[in-house]
């Protein structure tokens, strides 16, 4: 087997050195009747060529985003990733290293985490960011739990513009931890009054902008109300590129920010791995979950980096830890920070403007199709359309015509009377031809 360096002779020599009759001697603590006498009923070993052929076959059955006019978003976005990003994250020293618990030989990982934390803090307009979480939805759960710890209250109010999967994830955790969560009804036009929902038991309100329907929300008035009523404002985003163009949550008074960073540096990957971004005001530092990297000096007085404030974490505090999480999203965090470094401020702003321009153009084109209505007054690169038929069936018909036209709202919010709505996203990867093809396919499918 190509991955196993020991030869039969090696194995015999090693057994002799140990003084064991055979390898089964080491497994003698397994109750005899529970030991597997023979090989399990699964295929036997395959060459690299065979495995490659088999998996290529499976992959070829799927329609890749890059092979068609593609407008699917709703929490994950197709963007162009510079070739150097993927090259760099495959460097052995990044790819095959462990968590930087021995900082003297992990300065590479630690320094990029420090840079990442600084980038995320700047991007969100917050004081401090952690070394990343699993994804945006789990980061949102962590934000809610953190708000409960800070306020000593246990109820979260979830906006009707929060991604329904995020809301479901929070509800699952709330139910399991015995906390309360109130999810407001779907808020297609961003008209809900969240401030009125805050009562004495409310620890936090969770609001997304751009929201799941694409609307941009000014959180400043809500932040004022939260402050007055003693609740924390948790701002969520699923499209990190938007922060290159729209007011960041920190500038609107958010206490904690949780977001999805996939769209910078990371592929769609059918839902994972992604990278959760997490930032907060400095005064909540001790309650932040996950890893934090900090600057220090080594024995010769040279600058270096270490994981710090780790007494918050599970391996020290065990059942009193701020979170049970013991990983960040290392390589995805690296991909994010490399792509962000390549973009820089000028590149990010321009990328965001292109996204917005393409979405505006698409909205105008689709809105011109008879029977189709664009519902948003404001949006970044995603918006909601109303169609004169069932949205899910329409999306299937478009797929047959070779256009992946978006996400039917009924897939995220079944049984809510929103079956004629579709979420449509457009990024820099869409060409004018793609957008024209969509409008034409839509005309044909209606």
């Amino acid at each position, binding site marked *: 087997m*190509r*991955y196993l*360096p*020991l030869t039969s002779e090696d194995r015999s020599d090693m*057994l002799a*050195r140990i*003084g*064991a009759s055979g390898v089964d001697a*080491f497994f003698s603590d397994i109750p005899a009747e529970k030991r597997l006498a023979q090989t399990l009923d*699964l295929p036997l070993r*395959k060459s690299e060529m065979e495995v490659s052929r088999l998996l290529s076959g499976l*992959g*070829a*059955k*799927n329609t*890749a985003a*890059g*092979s068609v006019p593609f407008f699917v978003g709703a929490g994950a976005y*197709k963007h162009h990733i510079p070739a*150097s990003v993927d090259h760099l994250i495959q460097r052995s*020293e*990044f*790819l*095959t*290293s*462990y968590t*930087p618990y*021995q900082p003297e*030989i992990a300065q590479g*990982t630690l*320094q990029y985490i420090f*840079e990442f934390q*600084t980038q995320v803090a700047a*991007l969100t307009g917050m004081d401090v960011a952690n070394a990343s979480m*699993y994804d945006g939805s789990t980061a949102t759960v962590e934000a809610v739990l953190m708000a409960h710890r800070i306020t000593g209250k246990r109820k979260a109010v979830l906006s009707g513009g929060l991604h329904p999967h995020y809301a479901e*994830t929070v509800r*699952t955790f709330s139910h*399991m931890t015995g906390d309360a969560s109130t999810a407001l009804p779907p808020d297609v036009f961003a008209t809900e009054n969240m401030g009125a929902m805050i009562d004495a038991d409310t620890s936090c309100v969770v609001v997304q902008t751009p929201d799941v329907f694409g609307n941009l929300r000014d959180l400043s008035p809500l932040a004022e109300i939260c402050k007055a009523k003693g609740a924390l404002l948790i701002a969520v985003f699923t499209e990190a590129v938007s922060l290159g163009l729209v*007011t960041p949550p920190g*500038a609107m008074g958010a206490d904690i920010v949780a977001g999805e960073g996939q769209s910078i540096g990371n592929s769609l*990957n*059918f839902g994972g791995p992604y990278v959760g971004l997490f930032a907060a005001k400095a005064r909540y530092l001790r309650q932040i979950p996950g890893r*934090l990297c900090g600057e220090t000096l080594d024995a*010769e007085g*040279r600058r270096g980096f270490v994981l710090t404030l780790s007494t918050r974490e599970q*391996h020290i*505090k*065990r*059942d009193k830890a701020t979170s*049970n999480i013991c990983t960040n*999203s290392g*390589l995805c*965090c690296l991909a994010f920070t*490399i792509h962000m470094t*390549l973009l820089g401020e000028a590149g990010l702003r321009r990328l965001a403007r292109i996204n917005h*321009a*393409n979405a*505006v153009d698409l909205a105008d084109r689709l809105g011109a199709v008879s029977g189709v209505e664009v519902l948003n007054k*404001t949006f970044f690169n995603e918006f909601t359309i109303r169609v004169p038929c069932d949205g899910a069936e329409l999306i*299937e018909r478009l797929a047959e015509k070779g256009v992946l036209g978006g996400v039917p709202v009924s897939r995220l919010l079944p049984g809510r009377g929103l079956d004629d709505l579709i979420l449509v996203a457009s990024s820099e990867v869409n060409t004018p031809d793609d957008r024209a093809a969509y409008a034409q396919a839509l005309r044909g499918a209606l």
Partner: protein
Amino acid sequence: MLNRQIRATTAGDSARLEVETFTSNRGLALEEGLIFEIGRAEVTGVDLDEPAPFEPRLGGLERKDPIGLPGLSEPETLRHYVRLSQKNYSIDSGLYPLGSCTMKHNPRLNEAVARLPGFADIHPLQPQSTVPGALELIEDLAHWLMTLTGMDAVAMTPKAGAHGEVCGMMAIKAAIEAKGEGETRRIVLAPDSAHGTNPATAARLGFEVRSIPARADGTVDAAEVERLLGPDVAAIMLTNPNTCGLFEKEIVEIAAATRNAGAYFYCDGANFNAIMGKTRPGDLGVDAMHLNLHKTFSTPHGGGGPGAGPVVLSGRLAPFAPAPFLRRDENGLRLVERLDEAPYSLGRLAAFHGQMGMFVRAYAYMLSHGADGLRQAAEDAVLSANYIRASLNDLMSQPFGDRPCMHEVLFDDAWLKPTGLTTLDFAKAMIDEGYHPMTIYFPLVAHGAMLIEPTESESKASLDLFIATMRDLAMAARRGETERFLGAPVYAPRRRLDETRAARNPVLKWTRPPPQPV
């Protein structure tokens, strides 16, 4: 003629000179500034054209103030991150004996297939009709995981081991609530040797954690578990093989007692690498167990993630699995995403359906090994750990006596005591020898623990050199050559770092230094 300038071709007297360099670089050991020090806001490494003028729809929410993000051109970017990478240890550069972490070889075939557009470039919410190959792959991988573990179902969503623990313990909580025992069964038993995630997971789900003391031989006593079990116990969380590198030999009795008491058995599968193809947790009576695809099934650790932690479930927990999940029926294979189709489901654990990128890698690993290769891998991992044990046991002490171990061998610091050196000192000296240290100070049940896991990926020559190095260090320690340890590491990119300083005055991001007076 060729050596006209009489350049010296031997090293001569130049060796052993300490030179202060202008750049602070030391030859190939290159110093590298932060992107905030070397980049500029107006520089970009991505060519993008400004869009044609258009009417924005931002409703007055444009971002106006500078963001504070430096940019680098592509060559500068490459150089920055390549230099950073060179400050890291990695499996590809050397043996990485971190106990409980299973730092095995990461095959590059896995990386290649995970990047096929049919896997990397598909969206979790594009029509299911356009991703049949992805669903098939998840189904195939699930089949392998269930067969290897002898379990009835598998929840694929969890994004890491700790997330898998949350998933399994939630399924247990849901099952208990379904039986109307949610109010009474509030205690979770876990041994002292458990990973910190176990008690942290149980506590965050509202359980009270009660510890099971370790027996003198490092394993859990079934009679003790039986004594602690009662109508108030929800579950027991046990790692097997345990974190001392030992197989819990009374596991069948423990599982039976747990089941008889109406509780559930959560097994931490972090150490599944030792028993893959040798025994099946399902046959041992386990109800739920997470598998770390990034340990046992070779997906890269990536400097701390991303992981993947699918959870296999027994029949009595299967109905409570999280959504979405795969279902094959008369209409073929599809993902069930709606909670109303799964009335007992514990709910949703994350936005989408799991770490697909990791699934492809793990599946490539399994297909490459086959059932026969996986069993061989487990045997080689265990053989290598025992080889190290048998080669060091005369110099280093073991907390539970010298007996065969599974895939990792545990030493303590009793043998170091007379030298005045600590486990940390010993570990740092290993760095100078070109090795990543083993896991230290874990598990907590051993004083000054040193947990060594070589994995199946090392050749005999590599193991022999590691053993010889460890012996040399151990003898140096015993001889009192403390200077080799106390100052270590000397040859790493950094000497020991001041963690106290970092924690007392946290600097967690770069800030522009105040202008210097001219």
